[in-house]
């Protein structure tokens, strides 16, 4: 069974802090994704990566960056956290085959004070 693990379920940080959200998958998947989920807006794609050190902007990349130094790990970085980045963050992974579904972690609920 695919396992996508996000390092924290709940996180509280302060405005202006640099925040790291970590995601690890154990299925050797090529593709990894970061989404945020907000009430009434559904899931919105922030960044995705289709290989080690490769990344592409999603729909809402502003204020975020990502890092993929190893295939199994995909990190989301909030360079200078702001209150409007308070959200549920979801990581997903999938194989490189284009008709395979994404598998999600259980999310990190991040609060920026």
């Amino acid at each position, binding site marked *: 069974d695919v396992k996508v693990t996000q390092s924290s379920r709940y996180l509280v940080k302060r405005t202006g802090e640099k925040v790291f959200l970590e995601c690890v998958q154990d299925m050797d998947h090529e*593709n990894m994704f970061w989404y945020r989920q907000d009430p*009434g*807006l*559904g899931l919105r794609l922030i960044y*995705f990566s289709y290989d080690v050190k490769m990344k592409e902007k999603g729909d809402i990349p502003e204020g975020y960056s990502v890092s993929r130094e190893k295939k199994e790990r995909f990190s989301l970085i909030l360079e200078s956290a702001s209150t409007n980045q308070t959200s549920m963050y979801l990581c997903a992974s999938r194989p490189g085959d284009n008709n395979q579904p994404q*598998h999600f972690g259980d999310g990190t609920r991040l609060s920026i004070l």
Partner: protein
Amino acid sequence: LAKTTQPISMDSYEGQEVNITCSHNNIATNDYITWYQQFPSQGPRFIIQGYKTKVTNEVASLFIPADRKSSTLSLPRVSLSDTAVYYCLVGGVNTGFQKLVFGTGTRLLVSP
């Protein structure tokens, strides 16, 4: 990317069959249709995926008409534990990666 439209919410009772329809009028030739289920405080869970006609697994069935501009997720004999948000997505196949656009989903409430 194809946009999807689903009902915001649906109500049902235990033991009934539930059908959730999704519109995707501008679906592309290579797009697959995928459905996810999400419980509170959890990530979305893959339910079923199809390209055309009918797909069935141990959890649900997916009906896709010939024009592929809509699809219907069918949940047979729902139980209280099927109360969740259901997302319909369409995604490209031959783009080197599969970028999916999530809509706001359908909130299904199953009552005793």
